[in-house]
Structure formats: structure tokens, C-alpha cells
């Protein structure tokens, strides 16, 4: 009898998703809202189920699937991201006549894929989870199929995603061929005892890393991000920025510290490069953007760079820093995208940065939230964004990666320019036409919640810090 307890969250998601599909089929699109709220319920139940599991490391399905404190922490973040994604989409979809019940269901399935990624303990299960997630996301990106830009985004994402999956698979096959196993534990054992990895293994590892770097949109595998962020419907963009990134990062960390853990000296340099390229490009390319969604895309590339700084440290402190960073990034992005969703004029979405002009006078609360979030993204104390950066840079410095930390700080100085520019436009420019009001209940709530989190993080940071600490420790326990 297989022990199914560790996979209860995934089971909840799978069964829930299929049940919701059934409800949708029989009730039609009119049931979109109820399907959506039930989806949220399913996600929350899955999250709670994951949280109530024992935080000890448990391996099931013949070593394919693992659950530990690290997985729990990452899954919680993913669930929050997914819930936010559904909540933010509701009124948007209705307004744009794409209120189809498949939307929340797709998010549930994508979340299932992410859960699988986070808990993957074998190259095979890694790929299956990744593809389940990706396929859902491709559909979501093209969800407004009668909209040219949305379909273009979906297609681009699909083609490039297929390419990256191909790389990942090719890398996995090379690894299997040279190491003789696909299981993470077995691979770690092989690398530990071997007298230095063979060339084939190295190439395989690089391909795997490239495939994963695509998912977290690290430079130079980031090219899809601005186009897809801009083209996809805004709630989908928000969801992209929140959940998949966290799941992919969790997977990235698990792969690098687990099977490739003994090769830390090798992959450290690659992560180092990815981090620097991402930070610099994220900081520079955003300066000239006039579309707020594109700007946030580059901003997310930059944030990935900062998070990679922590990973480059390659130790427990570094992983802890990455997890803290991701949690804070989740809140910042959710809030920022809520503000973007609040940008409606004459019942149409506007996305230009100039449209924010004088927002402080027409919608002071939204402007205030946006200002707080931008300051936080720029990393200005005492807002949460500062602490996120602090912990990753601290880890890098402790690991002796001084150049990385210095470049990171410089990049965040450059990056501060465009964050502050948004604040300047909102507060000091002549008001444009005022935006539609009200902003909507769910969006207002998420905006308020994330802003409060950002502002008050420094008062009571211990839940996040301790959670990240336990999770990071779990990753290095094995």
C-alpha cells in the first residue's frame, strides 16, 4: 500500500480541479464566479493540507516525490499567489467578456503543476510537473483569444517554452546517460563519490539550468517576459509574476542544492553570471519603457537577479535569503499589479506610465499604495523590499561574493530611477483625466493587504524569517 498522506494537497487540487471542470461543464459560463470562489476554496484547502503535514522529509512514489519544510513554505507562497491571481481576474474577465469558467480551473491545474515541481525528486517528475504548469499557462496567456496581442503572447510563450522544455529534456537525458539515474538522491550520491564530473554531465547540467532559467526569466532566457507580460491579460500577467516564478525558483533551488549540490563550485559561476546579467538588464531596460506592464516585466527580471544573488551564495543563508526575497516580492508584485488593474479610464484599461500623472490628486489612496510599493521595490528602508535585498546581499557578502553584492547595490541604485520616476509622475505631474472609480472590492483588498504587509514587515518579521530559516535548513538536511 502506497503511503498517500504526503500527496494529499496534490490530490485535493487534482480532484478539485476535475470536479470544478464538471461543475463548469454542466452550469456553463454563468457559474464563473461560483467556480472561481470554489477554486479559491480548493486552493486554500490544499494549502492548509500542505501546512498540516509533518514537516519531516518524506519520500513517496519510489523516490519520485518528496515533501519537506521547504516544499511547505514554497507551496504556501504559491497558493497565495494563485488565490490573488483568481481574485484579481474576476471583475476584469467579466468586464472584457472573457468570463469563462475555465479560467480559475486552469489556475488550479497550473497550481497543481507547481506543487509537483516543488515536490519533484526525480528528473521525470520534475518535467511532468513543469509541463502541466506550462501548458496551463500557455492557455492563460492567450485567454483573450480574440485579442491579437493576447494570442500573440500566448503563441510566443508557447514556442519559446517548448524550446526551453526541449533544452531541459535534452539536458536531463544527458545527465541520465552519464550518471545512470534520474532520481535526485541517486544523482547526488553519484556526484559526491565521483572524481569530478564528466564533460557530458556538465553539459547536461547547463541545459537543465537553461531550461529552468527560462521559467524564472533570468537573462539571457528572459526575452519572452516583456512581450508576454504586455500582451497577456493583466490578471494573467499578475499571476505569471506571482506563482509560477516562485514555483520555478523553488524547483531551481531544489535541483541545484539537491542532485547538483556537490557541484556547487561549478554552477555557482553560472548563477553568478545569470544574476549579474539579470540585475543589470532589469535595471537598465526598464528606464525607457512607457508601458507599465512592460516596466514591471523588466522589474521582475531585476528582482530575479537579486534573488539569484542569494542562490549564488550556494548555502543555507543564501537559500533563506532567496525565500525571504520571494515572499516579499510576492507581496510587492501583487500590490503593484492591483494598482495596474485599477488603471481604468472610460471602462478601458490604460497601461501607459504617463496615464498615472497626477494620480495622487485623483485617487490618493491608490497613489499612496503605489508609492509605497515603488519605494519598497527600490529597496528603501524601512519597507520590506529593503530587507529582502539586505538578506540576499548579506548572504553573498558572507560567502565572499563581494563583486556580486557591489554590482547588485549599483544596479538597485540605477533601478531606483524608474521606480522613483513613477512616484514623481504620480505626485508632481499635472493630473491627467481621472481614472474610473471604484477600483473594485477584491483589488482594493489585495492592494491594501500587500501595502500593509510591506509597511509593517519590519515590525514583526519573525514569521517569514523563521519559516524561511526552517525551509532552507530542510533543503540542506539531506
Amino acid at each position, binding site marked *: 500500500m502506497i503511503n498517500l498522506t504526503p500527496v494529499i494537497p496534490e490530490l485535493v487540487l487534482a480532484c478539485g480541479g476535475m470536479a470544478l471542470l464538471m461543475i463548469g461543464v454542466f452550469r456553463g459560463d454563468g457559474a464563473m464566479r461560483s467556480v472561481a470562489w470554489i477554486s479559491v476554496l480548493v486552493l486554500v484547502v490544499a494549502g492548509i493540507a500542505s501546512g498540516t503535514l509533518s514537516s519531516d522529509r518524506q519520500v513517496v512514489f519510489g523516490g519520485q516525490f518528496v515533501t519537506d519544510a521547504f516544499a511547505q513554505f514554497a507551496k504556501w507562497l504559491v497558493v497565495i499567489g494563485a488565490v490573488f491571481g483568481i481574485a484579481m481576474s474576476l471583475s476584469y474577465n467579466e468586464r472584457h467578456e472573457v468570463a469563462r469558467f475555465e479560467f480559475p480551473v486552469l489556475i488550479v491545474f497550473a497550481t497543481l503543476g507547481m506543487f509537483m515541481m516543488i515536490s519533484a525528486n526525480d528528473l521525470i517528475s520534475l518535467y511532468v510537473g513543469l509541463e502541466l504548469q506550462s501548458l496551463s499557462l500557455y492557455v492563460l496567456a492567450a485567454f483573450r483569444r480574440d485579442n491579437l496581442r493576447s494570442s500573440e503572447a500566448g503563441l510566443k510563450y508557447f*514556442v519559446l517554452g517548448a*524550446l526551453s522544455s526541449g533544452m531541459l529534456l535534452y539536458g536531463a537525458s544527458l545527465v541520465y546517460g552519464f550518471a545512470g539515474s534520474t532520481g535526485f538522491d541517486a544523482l547526488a550520491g553519484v556526484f559526491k563519490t565521483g572524481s569530478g564530473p564528466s564533460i557530458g554531465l*556538465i*553539459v547536461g547540467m*547547463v541545459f537543465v539550468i537553461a531550461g529552468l532559467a527560462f521559467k524564472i526569466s533570468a537573462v539571457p*532566457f528572459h526575452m519572452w517576459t*516583456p512581450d508576454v507580460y504586455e500582451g497577456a491579460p493583466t490578471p494573467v500577467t499578475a499571476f505569471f509574476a506571482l506563482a509560477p516564478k516562485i514555483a520555478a525558483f523553488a524547483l531551481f533551488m531544489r535541483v541545484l542544492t539537491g542532485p547538483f549540490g556537490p557541484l556547487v563550485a*561549478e554552477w555557482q559561476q553560472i548563477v553568478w*553570471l545569470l544574476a549579474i546579467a539579470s540585475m543589470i538588464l532589469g535595471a537598465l*531596460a526598464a528606464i525607457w519603457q512607457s508601458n507599465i506592464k512592460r516596466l514591471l516585466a523588466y522589474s521582475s527580471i531585476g528582482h530575479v537577479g537579486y534573488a539569484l544573488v542569494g542562490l549564488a551564495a550556494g548555502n543555507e543563508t543564501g537559500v533563506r535569503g532567496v525565500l525571504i526575497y520571494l515572499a516579499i516580492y510576492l507581496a510587492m508584485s501583487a500590490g503593484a499589479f492591483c494598482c495596474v488593474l485599477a488603471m481604468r479610464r472610460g471602462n478601458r484599461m490604460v497601461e501607459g506610465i504617463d496615464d498615472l500623472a497626477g494620480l495622487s490628486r485623483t485617487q490618493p489612496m491608490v497613489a499612496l499604495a503605489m508609492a509605497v510599493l515603488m519605494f519598497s521595490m527600490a529597496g528603501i528602508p524601512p519597507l520590506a523590499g529593503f530587507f529582502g535585498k539586505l538578506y540576499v546581499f548579506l548572504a553573498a557578502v558572507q560567502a565572499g561574493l563581494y563583486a556580486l553584492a557591489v554590482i547588485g547595490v549599483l544596479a538597485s541604485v540605477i533601478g531606483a530611477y524608474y521606480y522613483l520616476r513613477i512616484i514623481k509622475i504620480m505626485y508632481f505631474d499635472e493630473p491627467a483625466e481621472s481614472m474610473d472609480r471604484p477600483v473594485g472590492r477584491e483589488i482594493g483588498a489585495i492592494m491594501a493587504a500587500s501595502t500593509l504587509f510591506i509597511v509593517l514587515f519590519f515590525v514583526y518579521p519573525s514569521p517569514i524569517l523563521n519559516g524561511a530559516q526552517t525551509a532552507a535548513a530542510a533543503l540542506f538536511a539531506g
Partner: protein
Amino acid sequence: MMYALCIFLPLAAAAIAGLFGPWVKDRGAQIVTCGAMLLSAVISIFILKHVALDGQVQEVELFPWIVSGQFETAWALRFDTLTAVMVFVVTVVSCAVHFYSVGYMHHDPGVPRFFSYLSLFTFFMLLLVTSDNFLQLFVGWEGVGLCSYLLIGFWYEKPSANAAAIKAFLVNRVGDFGFALGIMGVFFLYNSLSFETVFAATPAKADAVLHFLNWDFNALTVLCLLLFVGAMGKSAQLGLHTWLPDAMEGPTPVSALIHAATMVTAGVFMVARLSPMFEYAPTALLVVAIVGASTAFFAATIGMCQNDIKRVIAYSTCSQLGYMFFACGVSAYAAGIFHLMTHAFFKALLFLGAGSVIHAMSAEQDMRKMGGIHKLVPLTHMLMWVGSLALAGMPFFAGYYSKDIILESAFAAGTGVGYYAFWLGIAAAVMTAFYSWRLIIMTFYGRPRADERVMAHVHESPKIMTVPLLVLALGAIVAGYVGYDAFVGEGMQAFWGKAILVLPAHPALEQAHHVPFWVKVLPILVGLAGIGMAYWLYMYRPDLPGRVARRFRGVYLFLYNKWYFDELYDRVFVNPARYLGRQLWQEGDGTLIDGLGPDGVAAVARNLAQRASRLQSGYVYHYAFAMLIGVAGLVTLYLWLQGR
């Protein structure tokens, strides 16, 4: 307790008037600061009796300040006779000036600010004189410098006032540089900054040697000279005097308090306070005497040719400070302090009287546009006479006693420097009497040279201004007679106690009472001669001065232009510094640092940003290509790293 109260009352008043100015209003600020000063002045009289007359030296430890390794210093007040005299002078003159200012400044918009600065100045001055260590002395020293700066530039809308304030500050910085070096040197030599420790150790260090740049110096001489540079800056001695005349841009009560009676005498006070050190550094004493005597002479020559009523008095102050210094230089510290006290009274009186004249003449300061008003302002006229008589050293006025004893000491010193100081002092005395009566005659007598509107407006000042003048006049009349015995006469030893040290080898002051008769009479005679000359030239032959000036045009211009000191400094220091600053600003900062730094980096960042966004072409195959290149690049890098 009472002692601390005397010092800190002005600080409290300054804080109230300065921080709560808008709430307490003009009237409140005046009441608070004047009240505090009056109280302080009353206390200071008790202190003078306790400490100086009953001989009870007081030390009040407030709290430790810096404790760092060997270095320990505390906030502490030390009251010996020297301090008590200074506290008495400062509080009484400051009190008079405070009350006078109520009238003088009554239509100024910044009354609370003015009174706040004035009280703050008084506090720092008191801190300076009550200090028991070098560091606290320095705090007070800088504090009065700050207040002097603030008050000179009080009318900050006037560019000339701002320029004068900055000049005063900068010139003082030169002196303070020496002073600060001196303090560091003291700590280097003695490992302590406490007066008591340092003075006790001085006899043993008399022959200590300072090794610097392969040269050996007598350590004590170097220290004393450095400290004296500080005193020169603050007391406007020859070379560092240029700020004092310009400082007359400030309101007149400020000139009276800071630039005549108290702050500028801080240098004299310091030399007297450090007499236990200077006594063992004969070379330094020599320099002090020479600088003092030269200043006395030099400033007096300039004073004869100035036309601004306040500038005449300013140069006179400069000159009188020179007297005090050469008194110290011949080891007659007590005479120097004695003159400091009498001078504080009669010079404050003169300044405030001049202020009263300016007040009456609708803010006119040029003496060539005055004249003929002695019947219109009889009280001011009389008071100016009193002040001038005291300044010229006419018998039985305060200046007579103090100035004579200084000149006698210089003569009695019997050294070359002593005679040098004596004769220059005599020459300065002639000129002092001359320019004083030149001032009186030009201001009060002759025919009116002001226009009718101004003349119609001439009026005697209100009581609030004249009563303080009367108090000061009383001081100018009796201070010399009352103080003579205690300060420099029979009671000298008992009075000063241990506050001032004079080695038996330097008996100038003792000997001063036994100089030949002609030495005692000469100052009076030359003073009378000076007065007579002024009368002859300006009262009876008003055409003569112009002819003399034309005849000796070179000399006149030389004196009128203040020996071209300002021009010299402009040429030597100011212009090169300005040139250097401009170069550094435009070339160094503008082109180099800004060009490469902020501007350059920003331009590069914008450029790169443009390129980065151009990478994003929108074509899928470009993106795919970038990914493949990325992978290929990473693999290559790995293999290369592996191969190394």
C-alpha cells in the same frame, strides 16, 4: 549653585528668546533676556566680593565630558580673581547693552533673534572665562566667535554685513588654527588639558624640546606662540586685525558689547590666564610685547584718518588692545587686566554713545555729515566727553590709572622691548587724544553738515538707552580710582592670589611705582597736546586738515587706506584662493567629477538602457536565437573553466 546660575541664566534666556521667539514676542524676549542678565550681573557682584575680595577660590564641577584613554576632561567652572573680574565686567557691560538695545533695536523686525544671540554670546563669554581647562576654553572661544558672526551679519539682507561677518569668521579661523594647534601641543607635552595640572608641571617643562622636521624648538615657546596666534585673531592684533573695523556693520550695541568690551579682550584674558606658561617662555613674551606695542601704534595712526564714527572707535579699540598685550608682554598682566576692565566701561560707553548719535542722526555714521548738535543731544554729548576723557587718560578718569600703569610698567621693565613699547605707547597716546577730540569736534561742534530733514529730527535718546549709558559712565569715571590699589597697587598680592603668576625675574609692575617723575607725567602731557592739536586743527582752523592731507598726500592715503592691509591680503590670499576655488569648481568638479561621475554615469546608463530595450525586437526567432546563444555561451564557459 549661585555660581552656575550666573553662567547659565543667559543660556536659558537665549533659548527662550531664540526658540520661542514667535510666541513670547518682542516684549517677552526683552523681558526674559534683560531680566536674566540683570540677575547675572547682581550675582557677579557677589562673586567678585567672595572670590576676589575675600579670596575664596571656587570650583564647580558640572559633569564629565570626554573620557577616552588618558584623555579626560570635564565641564567645570573655576572662579578665581581673574575669572571673577572678567565675569563682573562681562555681565555688567552685557546687562547695560541689553537694556540699551531695548531702545536701540525697538523698530527692528528681528528683536527676539537679536536678544537671543546677545544672551547666547554672553553665555559663551562666561563659559570662556570660567573654564578650568583648555578644551572648555576653546568651546567658549568658538562660541563667542559664532555669536560674533551671527551678530555682525544680523542684518543679513545687507551684502556688506554678510561679507563682514564672513570676513570676521575667516580671519578668526586663522587665529583659531594656531590656538587649536596650541591646545593639541599642550596635550602632547603634558598629557592633560586641565589648567591646574598643566600649570603645576610647567616649571619642570621649561626646557622641554620639541623635535619637528629635524629642528629642535623650545616646546614652551612654540606652544605659547601658537596660543598667542589664537589670541591675536580674537583680539584683532596687527596682521589679524582686518576683521574688526568691518565688524562695525553689525548693530551698534553689538559693537559695544562684543567688539569693544568683551570678546576682543578674550585674547588678553587668555594670555593672563596662561601667565604661568608664558612666564617660562621669555621669547613668547617678547613677541607678545612687540606685537602689542606695534598694534597700539599702528591702529592709532589709522584711527586719525577715518571718517566713519564707529570705525574710529573700532581702531581705537584695536589700539587699546595693543596696550593690554604689551602690558602682558612685560609681565604686567595685572595692569593689562586692569586696563581691560576700565576700557570695557569707557569703550562700551563710547560705542553706545556713538550709537545714540547715530540714532539721533537717522542712521548716519559719516562724521563729515554731522556737526553742531551738542545742544540738541546734551546728555549724549556729555557722556561722549566722559568716555573720551577716560580713553585719552586724563587724570582721575578710569583710563588715566590703567594706561599710566601700563606705560610705567613698560618703562620699568628696563629692557629694549620695554622701551620700544613705552615710546610707541606714548606716540599712540598722542594720537588717541587727537582722534578722540577730532571725533567729538566733528560730531558735536562746528556748523551742521547734515541736511535739514535730518537736523529737524535730531533728538535725545529715550531713558532706556541713556540710563545704561550713565551706569557705564559711572564706571568710566570711578573704576580706575576704585580699582587701582587692588589691581596694581598695594593690595595686589592679596587680590590676585594665585590667579596670575609673575616670576621674581620680571618685576616690571613692582618697579612701575618707582619710575622717574617725567615718566608719570608724560602721558598726561602728550594727551593734552593731542587734545590741543585736535582743537587747533578742527575747531579754530577747520581749513587746515584738508591742506595737511593734500600736503602729505602719500602719508594720508596710506593711513586712510589702513596701511593697505586689506589690499595686500586680497592680493596675496583672497584672490589666489578664489582663483584656486574657481578652478577646482569649474575644472575639477564641473568637468572632471560631474562629467565622469553623476552626469557621465547617467549618460552611460541612458545609452545602455536604450540599447537594452532595442534588443527586444518582438520576433520569436530573435528570442530563440538569444536563448540558444545563451546556452552555447554557458556551455562554452563551463568547458573552458573545466579545462583550466
